[in-house]
Each structure stands twice: as structure tokens, then as C-alpha cells.
């Protein structure tokens, strides 16, 4: 089975950046996800849209942990949306959910953002 690398698409929406992810989130996603994060400079919130992610494994979790750690050090918040129920459960088990809000979809994620100051 061919592993599909993670593709990213970064969009600005108000004070937030939406990173649309598609493909698989494993160790090979480290480069693409960090590159995408690097593109985002002057926002307070990064929305990770997992709507087109079918597979996340433990090394993918580590990649998310890495990016989440960077964001926290920079005072940014990260929210997640579009997660399959199974991965939502995994975000809870791993306690990632304690450090990032999880929304069902992009619209609710955008709506749930703290108002721009």
C-alpha cells in the first residue's frame, strides 16, 4: 500500500489561518505540516482541518504534538476540526484535546474562535 504524503493548503480567514490537510498523518507529515505552520506568521489561531485525513498514527500524533508545542511557545492557539470520530477519541485518549479545541467542521471552528481584539 502506497503511503500518501500529507498535502497542506493554507488560507487566511480573519485573525486565523486555516490549514487544510489531506493525506496521511504519519512521521512523513512532519515536513509538510511544519512548512505550512511556518507560512503562518501574524495570526493568533491556527485551525487544522482534518476533513481529508483518513489515517493518523502515533508518529502523526507526535508531529501534531511538535507543532502544538511550537504554537504554545509562540502564544498561538491551535484548534482542530473535521476529525473522524475515531481520531477524536484518540485526541481525547492522548489528551491532545485538553490543549486544542475540537470542532466538528471548519465553519463551527471559525465561529468558535474568540472574537478578534
Amino acid at each position: 500500500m502506497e503511503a500518501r504524503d500529507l498535502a497542506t493548503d493554507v488560507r487566511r480567514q480573519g485573525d486565523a489561518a486555516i490549514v487544510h490537510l489531506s493525506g496521511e498523518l504519519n512521521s512523513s507529515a512532519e515536513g509538510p505540516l511544519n512548512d505550512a505552520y511556518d507560512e503562518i506568521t501574524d495570526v493568533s489561531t491556527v485551525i487544522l482541518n482534518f476533513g481529508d485525513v483518513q489515517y493518523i498514527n502515533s508518529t502523526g500524533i507526535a508531529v501534531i504534538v511538535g507543532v502544538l508545542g511550537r504554537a504554545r511557545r509562540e502564544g498561538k492557539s491551535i484548534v482542530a476540526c473535521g476529525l473522524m470520530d475515531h481520531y477524536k477519541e484518540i485526541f481525547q485518549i492522548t489528551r491532545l484535546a485538553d490543549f486544542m479545541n475540537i470542532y466538528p467542521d471548519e465553519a463551527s471552528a471559525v465561529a468558535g474562535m474568540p472574537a478578534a481584539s
Partner: protein
Amino acid sequence: MATRTRSLRAIRRRKGAEPGAVVESASAPQSEQAPVDISPGDPLLAYLESAGGPVDLDSLELESPAKEELRSAGVQVVVPLVSQGELIGLLNLGPRLSEQEYSADDRKLLDTLAGQAAPAVRVAQLVREQEAEARERERVEQELKVATLIQQQFLPRELPDLPAWHIAAFYRPAREVGGDFYDFIELPEGKLGIVVGDVTDKGVPAALVMAMTQSLLGAEAPRLVSPSEVMERVNDLLVADMPPKMFVTCLYAVLDPSSGKLQYANAGHNVPYVATDDAVVEFRATGMPLGLLPGMKYEEKEGVLGPGDTILLHSDGLAEAHNGDREMFGFPRLMKHMEHRSTGEAVIDDLLKELDAFTGRDWEQEDDITLVTLQRSRHAPLFAEVLGARSSASSSQDGSPEKDRTLAEFEVASRPGNERTAMARITEAVEELDIPSARLERLKTAVAEATMNAIEHGNNNQADIPVGISAVVEGNDLVIRVTDQGGEKALAEVEQPDLEAKLAGEQKARGWGLFLIKNMVDEMNVDSDATLHTIELKFHLKGDGHGS
């Protein structure tokens, strides 16, 4: 003989001669009268051989005990029966009943009679000898059959099936079956007893002693385990019942298949050779053959068969085979062969080929040939065997009446990404169980994580080392086993990772695999030995049946 005597009498009666004559065969004395023994060195024999006609004993001047004995038995005339220059019998005649002397005519008649009788007697003798030989041959053949039968009864019917080990055995009896034997004995804790032995002597007696020895070993080995103790005990038991001039040479070894540890004791048998990557070493231990003296002590030694190593146990038949020039195959040649050994069953095949080349085509095997090899695989144990053995062992331990049902059993190469293959195949295999989707997703994640762990940490991403995966329904559980070769590595306790520390960069971000697995399954077990490491994932299936 009776027929011939009757015909001689009839001849004499027709002539009006006297009864009481006997035919005396030089090689097999037999007559109605008490036979006269003539010693082979008696001068009378030499005289009669060249006499050329009837001999009157009374007028014969010869110092001969036989002559005196014949005379005292009432013999007057002796007619030698000579065939092809060889004295084959005597026609002994007493005095004529008419009390007259034997006339010249009588002597001529007797001479003629002897001339005709001699070849007939010779033929009869040959026939009788051949009949005796045939009977003896038949007896020997029969004995061979019995010996072979006993031998075959005691040879193992199948070879032990040990994961990560290749075991081969060869036994070829000589025409005159010797007393070779070999055996494998199942021991507690998954250990294996290996026996190779040789009884002195051949045929049925050797076969019986072989049977006795093997029975004793089979009875004592599982109880005592320690090779030296087993030898001591079997020796003492054998001494009591051993026929004179017989003994048994025997090598007994105990293998721990998981570590490759081999304990052994040797009762005067050939020294086993162990071929490693660097050299061929001898596994020597001293001890007297079994059955000679009571109270013998046997040295116990211990060695290790590492991955890729091969041990050869062998009887005399191979090393002591001779070629046409009476040159012996010899132990050095055997050792040298082990240096250039190949893998698999080929060790034995190659040895036999070399023996054939050495002895030539017309060689009749002198002694039984017994060869047993144990090879520890260099890399991959056959996972299907491991997993199969483990699942069947667990079911028999449970005493569960339900039969295990294997849904899948396969291997994937240790390449990153192959966890997806494992996940897909397992998903397909468990489809019939109709597992609810949320649980199925957990199962998929658990399988993928366990496989990744096996690929990366167990097998260090070495593509040629496979990861073995099986899915078996055991009672109300679906059990998935993922096996790698990182057995020696201790597995850390599964703890909740410290996410705060990871986010703060105080710990590396990775290290989620086992924690994830543990939270995906109903039960997670880890089984590790020196070579293999297995993660067992259990999912309770709903209902009482096979989870449908």
C-alpha cells in the same frame, strides 16, 4: 543316508553278501552302528586317500588310533570313497558271514562299487550342505527382518517442529542391521531431548538392547532432565540386564530452543560437531559407554548454538566407512565438510553425496549410518509455526472445548508503511465478525501501531526480517498476535505519556505507540523470549458464539 544304506545292502544281498556294512562319511559320521571318530590328523586318512582300492585293516602296517578303533569295532576291510582326489567317506565291512576271506573278485566289485558310489555320496553331501546353508540363510534373513522391525518401531516417526530451528535426521541400516538409534524427547518447559546412540553387536540382540535403552531414556529424560543424571540412571538400569560383551554408546543433549542453550553428556559416543560462522568446534564430554559398569559418573557440559549455527550428531557408520583402498572416510574429513556446510537439509544430503563419491558405486555399507542435525535459523523463524504453536498451546491450556479459528496468518517485510498492509489485511480477515465500526477502527489502529512497533523497534527496519501477524478467534475473543525478532530488548512499561513535558519540548514528541495500543484493545499482552517478541491484542466479541 538311509536310502543309500538300503541300496548298498540290497546290492550285497543280491550277491549273497553279508549285512552289517556301513557307509561312513568322513565329514558327517552317521550310521546304524556306533560311529567311529577319525581325527583329521590320523595317518589312516592320508593312506586311504591314496590307497586306490579296498584296504585290509588286519594286514595294514600303520600306526593309527583310527585303525585300531575300527578293528575293535569289527571292521576288516575299508573301502575308501574318493571323489575328485578327496576322501569323502569309507565303506566299512566286517568279516564275511561265511567266515571266508574276501576274494579278489569281492575286492574288485567293492572297488567298482566305491568308484560309482563316491560321486553320488559327494552330490548328496553337497545337497545336504546347501540345504543347511539355505536354512541358515533363511534364519539370518528372518532375524534381519525382526531386527529391522524392532529398529523401525523405535525410530521417531516425525521430527520435532521447532520454530526458528531446522531439524533433520537420517538413518540407513547396513544390510546386517546394526544397533544405531536416535530419538527426540519432549521435555518440560518446551525443551527438547536429543539422543543418538549405537549398540555394539548387530541383529536381534542389538535391536533389543537398543529398544531397552531407548525406553529407559524416554522414561527417565522428562523426569530428570539433566543429561548427566539421565545417563547415570539409565546406565545403572542397563547394567543389570545387559547381555555379556554388549554395551551402548550414547550422546544425550537437552536443547532450550529459545536461547539455543545445549546441555549434553556423552557415554562414549562420537563427539558432535558444531559449525559456527568462524569455525567447527567439538562438543566434548567424557563418560563410559552405558551398560558396562554400575555407578558411572557422566560429565555434563553446556554450549550455545547461536543463530546460523549447526550441530551434527553422528554414528560410526559414516566416519568409519572404507573405500576400495581400505582408506577410512574419517573424522577429519567429516569436520572439514562441516566447515563448508550449506544450509537446510542439505548438510545431510551433501555428506551422503561426499560419502558416495568416497566409497564408490559398489560399496556395501559396513555399519548403520545415523545423522542428526539441528540448525538454528539465522534470521527469521517461521512465524506461522510460532503463532500456530502458541495459539494451539494456549487453547489446550485453557482446556476450552471451542476450537480456535484462524482468520489470517501472514508476514510483512519490515519496511516503514507496511503497517498499512497489515491493517488492510486484518480488516479484510475480520470482516465476517461484523465488528461495530468504532471498535473496528480501534482494532485497525492497534494492529497498525503494533506492526509499526515491530518493524521499527523489533526488527530495526531490516526489510529481510519479517513481522508475523495472525488473527485467531479463540472462544469469545479475537486475538491478534504481532511477532518480531526484538526478543532480547526489554519493553518499557506502558505509561501515560507526559504530554505537558512533550509540549514544552522537555521530552521528545514521539512515544505514543504502545500507549495507543493499550487504549484501543480490551487486553494487551506481551510475550518475549530470547529471539521473539510478540504483542498479543485481544478484543472481546459480543455474544456466545464466534462473535457473529
